[in-house]
């Protein structure tokens, strides 16, 4: 009964969605949101009650799966995650109706809802016709379920997909804005101002999603890595980079009424990348451990829809953008130019990651053989780009709009001097590589330059607090990456209980082995006592779990962390003589990476908050 209700709810949501295309009414949006919520609720109920007549429940759940993860299984598989996608789109649209509709000119708001209706119709149709999570298959024998993959049975599952999807899907709003603006024929300052929140919020969610994904992979995969240039990871980084460019371009469009074409184009590009990402993960076109196992016919539908939607948008863009009225007076040395350079650098980064990820397909399609593109390629090209962006980040806030003297650069003498001094000192004390020095220099550069800017405008600093915090966040992120990459070490060894090992200036004493029974797994824990300079500072539990349903062994590394570094132990196999294979990792500054990322997100939210507080009384 409930599965049928679920399907029926989706059909109703589709009706509202179609209505939304033609009438752009808020009521259609709310109708969609309500019925998709009902559908998701139905799916969760099916999972909680373990209704194994629903194929999705069979494939992704198990009677012994803890309740927590049964709910997470709602988006652990392709069909459920697609329902989540549609649901989140309806929530964003509803949010826009409540908070943003009135702030934009009616023409734009209405056209935005129509565009959103077009997108949601396409996706709900895709859901209904090819990927219905409520598909029933009555079993003939007793079924217990295939269980959720052990690697997904982690708190990260509850948090990471919804947050990440909120980011991906939220990009639809600025896309809808771009379409509405193209149809209208111009973009006013007020329009641009109203759109700001609808790009910063998704950008923040994407940032959080990426950070949480990195953190989850670090904890779960057992070799202390936090980024792998995996195609699916790249798929989430691409829209984030583009959204960053869009954010900055929008600011210029609002303040100076220029870059209108760039803003519109970037909004289209960002959503395109988001859709391509959604496609890549489920089409089987790329090999990735993150990908949903899927058949190419689903990929065909999705790709077809996306081609028509984006092709149409870009066609509209090419016909209408020329008619836009805007300001164009700015000199070669001006903040406008700096921000345009920033857009170019970020787009180059997007281009690089895109071409690196898709190149194997290109060569294969042209029958030119099979190559693989991995970390060495991305690091080689991406790192210099990032260094240039950091350079620009330190300069741009100090340059005036429209026209400035190059002598202004001399004002940045202090940050330059101090950054150089820091680099010099570090290179004396520690061993460093060229990249280490560059990383430290540019991170310090951004940090000090941003602080100098904050001091300069201290009376107005609240207004710009978002930017200041976000840029500092990036500096911390860059510093964390630099130190982490340079000074990480690891050691693999065989150790008996009651033996001790020295590593990274710490002593690790293998105290004992614990065995435990979890809800759907058995666990073996190796307990290590950690000493630093003869003082006991903590305990690390490196665990191995054997999940009974899949007969799979999953390693849960033990981590002891503080502000500066992580000590990380992953447990391997037991040897016949009673010793264990163990891998120790020293990961300095890895928490700075995520903290920096979160700080950047915070900066974005801060800027929205400050805006909102200012506009409230008015």
């Amino acid at each position, binding site marked *: 009964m409930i599965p049928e209700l679920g399907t029926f709810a989706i059909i109703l949501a589709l009706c509202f969605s179609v209505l939304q295309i033609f009438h752009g009414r808020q009521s259609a949006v709310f109708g969609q949101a309500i019925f998709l919520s009902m559908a998701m609720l139905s799916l969760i109920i099916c999972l909680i009650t373990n209704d194994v007549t629903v194929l999705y429940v069979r494939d992704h759940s198990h009677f012994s799966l803890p309740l927590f993860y049964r709910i997470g299984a709602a988006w652990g598989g392709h069909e459920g995650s697609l329902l989540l996608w549609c649901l989140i789109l309806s929530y964003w649209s509803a949010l826009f109706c409540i908070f943003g509709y009135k702030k934009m000119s009616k023409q734009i708001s209405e056209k935005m809802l129509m565009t959103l209706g077009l997108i949601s119709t396409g996706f709900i149709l895709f859901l209904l016709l090819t990927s219905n999570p409520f598909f029933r298959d009555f079993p003939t024998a007793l079924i217990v379920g295939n269980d959720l*993959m*052990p*690697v997904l049975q982690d708190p990260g599952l509850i948090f990471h997909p919804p947050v990440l999807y909120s980011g991906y899907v939220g990009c639809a709003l600025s896309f809808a804005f771009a379409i509405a603006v193209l149809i209208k024929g111009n973009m006013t300052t007020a329009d641009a101002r109203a759109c700001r929140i609808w790009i910063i919020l998704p950008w923040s969610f994407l940032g959080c999603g990426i950070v949480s994904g990195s953190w989850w992979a670090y904890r779960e*995969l*057992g*070799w202390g890595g936090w980024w*792998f240039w*995996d195609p699916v990871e790249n798929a989430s980084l691409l829209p984030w980079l583009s959204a960053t460019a869009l954010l900055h371009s929008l600011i210029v469009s609002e303040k100076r009424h220029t*870059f209108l*074409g*760039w803003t519109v184009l970037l909004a289209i590009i960002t959503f395109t990348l988001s859709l391509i990402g959604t496609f890549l993960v489920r089409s*089987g076109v790329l*090999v990735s*451990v993150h*990908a949903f*196992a899927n058949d190419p016919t689903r990929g065909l539908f999705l790709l077809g829809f996306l081609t028509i939607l984006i092709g149409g948008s870009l066609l509209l863009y090419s016909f209408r*953008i*020329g008619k*836009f009225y*805007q300001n*164009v007076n*700015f*000199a*070669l040395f001006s903040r406008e*130019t700096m921000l*345009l*350079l920033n857009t*170019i650098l970020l787009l*180059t980064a997007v*281009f*690089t990651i895109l*071409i*690196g990820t898709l*190149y194997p397909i290109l*060569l294969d399609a042209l029958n*030119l*053989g*099979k*190559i*693989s*593109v*991995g970390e*060495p*390629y991305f690091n080689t*090209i991406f790192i210099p*780009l990032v260094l240039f962006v950091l350079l620009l980040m330190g300069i741009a806030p100090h340059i005036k709009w429209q026209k400035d003297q190059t002598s202004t650069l001399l004002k940045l003498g202090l940050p330059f001097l101090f950054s150089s001094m820091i680099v010099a000192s570090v290179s004396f004390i520690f061993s460093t590589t060229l990249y280490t020095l560059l990383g430290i220099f540019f991170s310090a550069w951004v940090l000090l330059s941003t602080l100098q800017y904050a001091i300069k405008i201290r009376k107005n600093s609240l207004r710009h607090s978002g930017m200041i915090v976000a840029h500092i966040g990036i500096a911390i992120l860059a510093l964390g990456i630099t130190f982490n990459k340079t000074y990480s070490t690891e050691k*693999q*060894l*065989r150790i008996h209980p009651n033996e001790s090992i020295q590593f990274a200036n710490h002593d690790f004493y293998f105290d004992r082995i614990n065995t435990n029974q979890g809800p759907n797994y058995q666990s073996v824990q190796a307990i290590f006592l950690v000493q630093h300079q003869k003082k006991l500072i903590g305990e690390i539990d490196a665990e191995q779990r054997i999940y009974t349903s*899949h007969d*799979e*062994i*999953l*390693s849960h590394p033990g981590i002891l962390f503080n502000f500066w570094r992580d000590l990380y132990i*992953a447990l*391997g*196999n037991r*040897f016949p003589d009673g010793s264990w*294979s163990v*891998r120790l990792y020293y990961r300095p500054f890895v928490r700075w990476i995520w903290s920096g990322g979160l700080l950047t997100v915070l900066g974005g939210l801060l800027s929205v908050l400050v805006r909102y507080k200012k506009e409230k009384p008015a």
Partner: protein
Amino acid sequence: MKKSFVVLCLFLFSQLLFAANDIYSFHSTQQQNQFETLTTELRCLVCQNQNLAESNAPLASDLRQQIYQKILQGQSTQDIINYLVARYGDFILYQPPLRVTTFLLWFGPLLFIVIAIIILFRAIGSDRNIA
């Protein structure tokens, strides 16, 4: 076949026996470094998004063993790479080789940014709409 392939990789990926039974000891840090370089720059062909160092696939384990033996025998990094490429093709290299076919890959970004900057400067130079 594709579905079981992905399941196989997830299985191996999550197992983390990480060469659990292979502990390699070398005669010098130079050999150790050589091993690390090779195993991190070569792709595992079974779990294709992991390098040989990280992968738990039996093939990865076999290849690590072979690389280990060859390093002890004193073979150079390039010799070992040639040996593996002769059997598995370019795909085993994580770093795409610089060839005519990969020209676009390696120089594409540079071309992109150079062209973009040229367009930028020309547009700013004249008094036209930047759009």
